[in-house]
């Protein structure tokens, strides 16, 4: 929680003023019993109606000032809480975006989404409540005690004993129940999990007639949850009765002490009434505080969860933009001429070196025991088409994910244009590489919006060209609104094949130097797939851009015309070469190829 407080920094004024005004309101509330004491002692005691009326007016006035203060406080509290959560969400969103794939795999998207939505809301609620009430209640409790001291020292000593006792009880119960509420939440998550699982797996569960067992399992978890809830309920049910006893027994003692003090002439009857009033004010505030504590407990738990998100930092470090040049600048070539020279040299380097090199690359995923890729070593020239084929889990996707540096190689190095991918800035690198992933994901918005993901300022012409290459032109044109056709969330209103072609177009419109198609034509029929490959091979020709293409596929026919084919098996390269060569000497390739004929 502590670290999240920085998001209140811009709302210092509000954060201070809200409780301040709340306290002011409380102050005026604390005057009320004193005014009442005066009414009783002076007004009734001396039968002064004018005084009573005057004091009545004072009471109304106190109420009015209290109202104003309170409204002001509410405003500041709301402003600070809402602003806080907006800032928090902004940072969290930015933070989550900065995480590398390794952390994303570890967290899982559903966790990240819950943190950003319901958890942040709970914290916002908590901040608002704390600003509004958390200071007010203790203030009234202690204020009542202070006021009691102004009336009578001896009687006030009862407050001094009562208040710590109450604090111990209230906080004690809170400390006990807080971890228990966490368990209740875990129990609820469990019940939710089973429900969800039974919906997603309904066909399998019914096919294996497991309904009865699932029901028993659910009822067990549900009973466990109920049991937990009842247990926590029992403990928190103690709060009210115990505080009730403490406060009222104190009142009894207070009355007796008051009687003694009045009898000896230290205080008046009205003052006893005031003391009793202060005691009951404490009780009312405590009830509020107890309710508040539940909200705060929840908010704190959420805040801690959010904070743990922030503590998770990207395991990948990126160079700043233009790192290559920066390096040069640091080396002393700070004059612009030097930079120009280096730029030319760099460009020459890029042209003479390989487009992509894998130098003895191995990859072990975080937390995994075995290597997913071992000792991968091959070089790709500019403009080549590389086919990557291999069995499930053979490491095809892992291999291409190293090129845009989604993951870092654990051993060896991956180079693009002769430079280690680790020496590129994120923008530079991701700009060079166009990636089409296995899962065809589109975003809510028009087709145009989606294509612009690849190139923010793409013209219609460029987009149409990309659609042509990806064999999507025909179906996009057939849509009533063409490029402006709206795509629903997740692209639900398109077929799988259409989605795949659009994701390819999205990468193509970027005109990347390296285009990676990760099994992204699986939903296309063979004929379209063939046309797609042909147009991708030719796409560089009309704008003099050389594109190096990686095609990952399960289908031998998709890659058999590639300049180089990488055959992977269990994370190792077992074949490298052209189709004909591999047919001759690579057993694995042969097997794959003939199985598909």
């Amino acid at each position: 929680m502590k670290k999240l407080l920085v998001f209140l920094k811009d709302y210092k004024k509000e954060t201070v003023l809200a409780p301040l005004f709340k306290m002011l309101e409380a102050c005026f509330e604390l005057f009320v019993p004193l005014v009442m004491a005066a009414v009783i002692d002076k007004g009734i005691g001396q039968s002064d109606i004018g005084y009573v009326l005057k004091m009545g007016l004072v009471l109304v006035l106190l109420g009015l000032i209290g109202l104003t203060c309170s409204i002001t406080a509410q405003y500041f509290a709301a402003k600070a809480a809402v602003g806080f959560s907006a800032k928090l969400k902004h940072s969290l969103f930015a933070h989550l975006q900065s995480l590398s794939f390794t952390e994303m795999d570890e967290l899982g998207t559903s966790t990240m989404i819950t943190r950003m939505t319901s958890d942040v809301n709970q914290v916002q609620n908590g901040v608002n409540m704390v600003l509004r009430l958390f200071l007010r209640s203790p203030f009234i409790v202690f204020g009542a005690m202070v006021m009691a001291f102004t009336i009578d020292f001896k009687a006030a000593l009862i407050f001094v004993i009562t208040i710590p006792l109450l604090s111990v009880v209230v906080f004690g119960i809170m400390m006990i129940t807080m971890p228990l509420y966490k368990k209740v939440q875990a129990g609820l998550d469990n019940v939710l999990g089973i429900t969800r699982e039974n919906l997603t797996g309904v066909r399998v569960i019914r096919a294996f007639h497991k309904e009865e067992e699932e029901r028993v399992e659910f009822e067990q978890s549900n009973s466990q949850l109920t049991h937990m809830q009842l247990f926590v309920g029992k403990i928190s049910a103690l709060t009210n009765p115990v505080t009730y006893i403490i406060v009222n027994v104190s009142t009894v003692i207070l009355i007796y002490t008051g009687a003694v003090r009045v009898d000896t002439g230290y205080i008046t009857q009205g003052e006893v009434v005031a003391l009793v009033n202060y005691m009951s004010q404490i009780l009312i505030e405590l009830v509020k505080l107890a309710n508040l504590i539940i909200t705060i407990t929840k908010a704190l738990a959420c805040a801690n969860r959010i904070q743990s998100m922030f503590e998770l930092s990207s395991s990948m470090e990126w160079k700043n933009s233009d790192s290559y040049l920066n390096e040069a600048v640091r080396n002393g070539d700070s004059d612009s001429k030097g930079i120009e020279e280096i730029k030319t040299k760099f460009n020459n380097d890029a042209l003479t070196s390989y487009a992509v090199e894998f130098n003895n690359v191995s990859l072990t995923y975080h937390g995994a025991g075995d290597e997913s890729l071992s000792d991968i070593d091959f070089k790709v020239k500019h403009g080549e088409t590389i086919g990557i084929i291999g069995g499930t889990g053979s490491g095809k996707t892992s291999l291409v994910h190293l090129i845009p540096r989604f993951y870092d190689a654990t051993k060896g190095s991956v180079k693009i244009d002769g430079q280690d991918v680790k020496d590129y800035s994120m923008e530079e690198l991701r700009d060079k590489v166009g990636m089409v992933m296995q899962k065809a994901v589109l975003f809510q918005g028009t087709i145009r919006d989606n294509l612009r993901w690849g190139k923010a300022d793409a013209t219609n012409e460029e987009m149409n060209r990309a659609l042509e290459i990806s064999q999507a032109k025909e179906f996009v044109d057939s849509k009533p609104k063409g490029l402006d056709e709206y795509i629903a969330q997740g692209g639900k209103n398109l077929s799988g094949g259409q989605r795949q072609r659009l994701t390819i177009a999205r990468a193509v419109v970027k005109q990347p130097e390296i285009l990676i198609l990760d099994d992204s034509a699986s939903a296309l029929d063979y004929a379209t797939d063939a046309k797609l490959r042909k147009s991708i091979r030719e796409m560089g020709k009309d704008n003099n851009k050389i594109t190096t293409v990686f095609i990952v596929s399960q289908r031998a026919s998709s890659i058999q015309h590639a300049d180089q084919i990488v055959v992977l098996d269990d994370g190792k390269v077992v074949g490298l070469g052209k189709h004909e060569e591999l047919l001759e000497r690579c057993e694995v390739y042969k097997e794959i190829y003939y199985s598909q004929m």
Partner: protein
Amino acid sequence: MESKGGKQAQTIRKVLRYIRKYWLYLALSIVAASVTVALTLYLPILTGYAIDLIIEQGLVDFAGIMEILKKMAVVILITALTQWLMNICNNKMTYNIVKDVRNDAFRKIEILPLKYIDSHSYGEIVSRVIADVDQFADGLLMGFTQFFTGVITIIGTLGFMLSVNVGITGVVVLITPLSFLVASFIAKKTFTMFKLQSETRGEQTAFIDEMIGNQKIVQAFSHEDEAMETFDEINGRLESASLKAIFFSSLTNPSTRFVNNLVYAGVAITGAVLAITRGASYISVGQLSCFLSYANQYTKPFNEISGVVTELQNALACAARIFELIEEDAQIDEPENAYVLHDVDGTVTLENVSFSYVPEKKLIQNFNLAVKSGQRIAIVGPTGCGKTTVINLLMRFYDVDAGAICVSGHDIREVTRKSLRGSYGMVLQETWLKTGTIRENIIMGKPDATDEEIVAAAKASHAHSFIKRLPNGYDTVITEEGGNLSQGQKQLLCITRVMLCLPPMLILDEATSSIDTRTEIKIQQAFATMMKGRTSFIVAHRLSTIREADIILVMKDGNIIEQGNHETLLAMNGFYANLYQSQFAK
């Protein structure tokens, strides 16, 4: 309006039915609450008496005071006890009802027709079972503790006040409704603000869902800045909408507190003036102090009740949603003397079968098919042509609209679901695994399988080699929806599951779509041994599989348009022939 009220009354009746089981707790709770309230109200009167005995120096009746204080101590102890009792009873009642409701809802989910589950989003059903039930429970608990005690407090206070002094009671009764008015006025005004807030929040959640859910693509396209920009725009709108909604709704408390203060001042002035003009016999200082504490207690429940009423209404709405689920029509019951399929010979006949998901869109009509024992039926067609419909009908996930499907000569509507589904081994394209260990997932169809059988099945499906490489082998826990396994590995596990129980008939829905061809061939060999003598239905893409089938069903737009074997279909030169040509064209 009438129907809405009627519906609410119905919902309440249903809630009462759940409560009935716990009537003892309810009765105890009501008694305890009544006692608590009565005693809580009695206490200020005793305090008042005591204060009246403390007049001034020398005029203090200690004996009398001690008497009253003893009484007070007893009252306090009893009140605390009944308060505790009330809380416990309410908890017991509420949480048990929640448990019952959830169990009923889940039980219904297990027997809902697939039609319902397919046509509702999982999130929606889950939120009924979880969030709605929670809301309902909160409302119920609050309703009981606050609404009930609130009403008793108001009535009790009125009674006590009237018994003490009628005139001042009048002042309290006149001013209090004001706070009620203020509260409902604010609630009405803030409704639109809350609506805007929740709409904007929904928009933001959808955006987060999309961006964070597809974070990898966002990063691959360096789209972070644009995403941030859109996010900030929505975030800004949400900020101002929330500020308004929260601020204006938070006015309720101070405003009603202000009204409380007015009541307090009113009581103080009239009380004091009356005490002066009419004398202490009309109203004493002790009585006045008692009134003042009543004035606080009397207005508080009013404020609470206005909150509770919305809460209760909300809870009822939630309850109605849950009951909707619980009362949803279950799948058709099995006939009483349903036949238990055994020694299935593998013949399947479809006679004049018609089926459609919605009446407006006719799909399968008058379809006939006779499958002999051990035949292989391939279902082919473009993506989205409704190949799974056939599976839905065979497994009786859906019932045919007309005609009949018979297995071994028995109409599947006259056999037990258990024995029908148990006769099929099904591997679906969408791999589904249960949270639990690998072993638990494999033995789903045969819970008493020995380790040897499990390993043998896993070897047959070529899953053994990857399973044994997992940290805990067969006892590795699969996380939510198999997150720690690849798609292909998940599919292998699903196949293993079927390999283990070896039912007489098989349904394979693109069972090997995520498995590489090499492994697929090995699995297919395993399947081939498995399929020997077994009737099998295969939704297939690969032509080699299709070519070997005894019967090929060609589907398009949900309907079966061609039927025959490879040669006859090619000779027909229809849709199948076309499909075949296109796939083999280079």
